[in-house]
């Protein structure tokens, strides 16, 4: 099954890494959209359907927390799951993300498995035994 996945991170290398992990985890047929900050992501979501958002927090223009609040305050986007992938590892900060409506949190540095497992938990029906794409051997699960 293919999805529309939005990656929001101001780091060009990090967006590429997450994209490769998603492809290796069986989401290769999904549409992967990218934004460099929360504001870009908000604009992009006005014209594109998104099934799940993976966002950093520490970004210029609009950070991850403000972006989540924006999404959750909009009737059209409030049910879209948002996963925070960030270096902000403080327990109270993570609680703040979850209280704002985040569906999950992954701390950087992360393993490829952490992203795959959370995606599977949220989207539910990806059987990676069958769909695993081994064309990219850089990420071993």
């Amino acid at each position, binding site marked *: 099954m293919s999805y529309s996945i939005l990656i929001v991170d101001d780091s060009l290398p*990090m967006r590429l890494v997450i994209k490769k992990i998603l492809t290796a985890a069986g989401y290769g047929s999904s549409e992967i959209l990218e934004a460099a900050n929360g504001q870009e992501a908000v604009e992009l979501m006005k014209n594109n359907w998104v099934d799940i958002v993976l966002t950093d927090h520490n970004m210029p223009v609009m950070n991850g927390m403000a972006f989540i609040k924006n999404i959750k305050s909009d009737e059209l986007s409030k049910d879209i799951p948002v996963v925070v992938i960030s270096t902000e590892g*403080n327990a109270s900060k993570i609680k703040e993300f979850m209280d704002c409506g985040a569906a999950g949190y992954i701390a950087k*540095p992360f393993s490829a498995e952490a992203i795959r497992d959370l995606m599977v938990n949220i989207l539910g029906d990806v059987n990676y035994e069958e769909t695993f794409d081994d064309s990219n051997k*850089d990420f071993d699960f």
Partner: protein
Amino acid sequence: MKKLLMTAIKTSISEVMETMFFLPVEFGREATLDQCGMDKKNTMASQLAFTGDFSGRLILLAPRNLIAEMAENFMGEPRRNLTEDYFSGTLAEMLNMVCGNALSKTKSQIPFELGIPQMINASEVSENEVFTIVETFDAKMAVLLKMD
């Protein structure tokens, strides 16, 4: 506090380098860039400010060749496919992960706020600054913690 934070930074550098860049590291003696033989001309540098219970900034310098190797390992792409933006982005992301990870290991009353990593010119770094030297297989980088 600086000593405690520097210990956390060293642990985080090891974790980030091994988990994301697949490069084991060892920590050498403290030294100026001249003393450790780092050539500023072929070195890229980035700094990141943080605020919280205490404030300061972390500065990271690494030779271009090491950054290219880290970028290759991080993204699984040969360096010929990567532009300058990917190299500077790799150094900035390394600094971001190290700083965020290290600060989360400290017992703080107020959650730390990180700034955005900024690329700086290595030649602007003072000759007299004493860095913690981080050694990989055949290269070294330098890290400096400055408290406000």
